[in-house]
């Protein structure tokens, strides 16, 4: 992580849709099955580990998203110095991986965060996505993993008409092009 480069570095505005890449953001993938693991990450991050499917919890620093019964995704609210990501990774690694409670993987480089704002963002996503956003858009903190234009994404409903979307780095430029192309027709 010596040279942190992002693939998009752009913000685009359309009528009622604003999309921007937000980077660098700290992202850590956490996997574990035991109850001890769940309480441990809650304690280390001062956050309640969400155990209900498709939900998340947040504090002033982090968001913790439910991905699966044994998998969570942690990301920072604000842009970070990438060195700080390594510090937190090491801390969690020592507390969780080393004592064999679960696994800690720094995925800050793996995922790219794109923020979507505006009243028409769900229309934009639905142009290439089979997921039913009706309930999702009404519940703050909701999380889903789905496909947009055949690309895997994680979507976090941060606030009303304000989403953070995560896409794998190698697919991000393609998704970005698709979003910009589709936004023109909405």
């Amino acid at each position, binding site marked *: 992580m010596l040279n942190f480069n992002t693939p998009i570095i752009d913000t685009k505005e359309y009528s009622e849709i604003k999309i921007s890449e937000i980077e660098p953001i700290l992202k850590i993938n956490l996997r574990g099955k035991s109850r001890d693991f769940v309480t441990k990450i809650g304690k280390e991050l001062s956050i309640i580990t969400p155990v209900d*499917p*498709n939900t998340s919890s947040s504090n002033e620093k982090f968001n913790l998203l439910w*991905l*699966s*019964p044994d*998998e969570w995704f942690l990301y920072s609210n604000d842009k970070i110095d990438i060195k700080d990501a390594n510090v937190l990774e090491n801390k969690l690694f020592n507390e969780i991986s080393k004592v064999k409670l679960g696994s800690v993987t720094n995925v800050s480089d793996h995922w790219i965060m794109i923020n979507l704002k505006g009243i028409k963002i769900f229309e934009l996503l639905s142009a290439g996505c*089979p*997921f*039913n956003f009706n309930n999702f858009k009404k519940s703050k903190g909701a999380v*889903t*993993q*789905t*496909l947009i234009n055949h690309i*895997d994404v994680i979507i976090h409903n941060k606030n009303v008409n304000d989403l953070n979307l995560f896409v794998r780095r190698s697919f991000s430029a393609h998704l970005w092009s698709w979003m910009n192309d589709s936004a023109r027709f909405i």
Partner: protein
Amino acid sequence: MFLINCPYCGERDQSEFSAGGEAHILRPKQPTELSDDQWAEYLFMRKNIKGVQFERWNHAHGCRKWFNMIRDTSNDKIHAVYKMGEKPPLK
């Protein structure tokens, strides 16, 4: 196209899932004691019936968990969805 009720995430479009073939096939305890025919029977032979079939599915583009499903292959009607390791709710 049809909807599948993932036992973890809830109802999602079929395109998020991948089919994993027939369910409830047990790996033989002592593979070395089997004849080639018996091993081939375990490894390759699948029912592939027209009608109600017990299948494994994976929510590949969601929670990535495996689960079982009872589906009518002739009309895609889903009779039940249940987690790995659970007994089928229907016979």
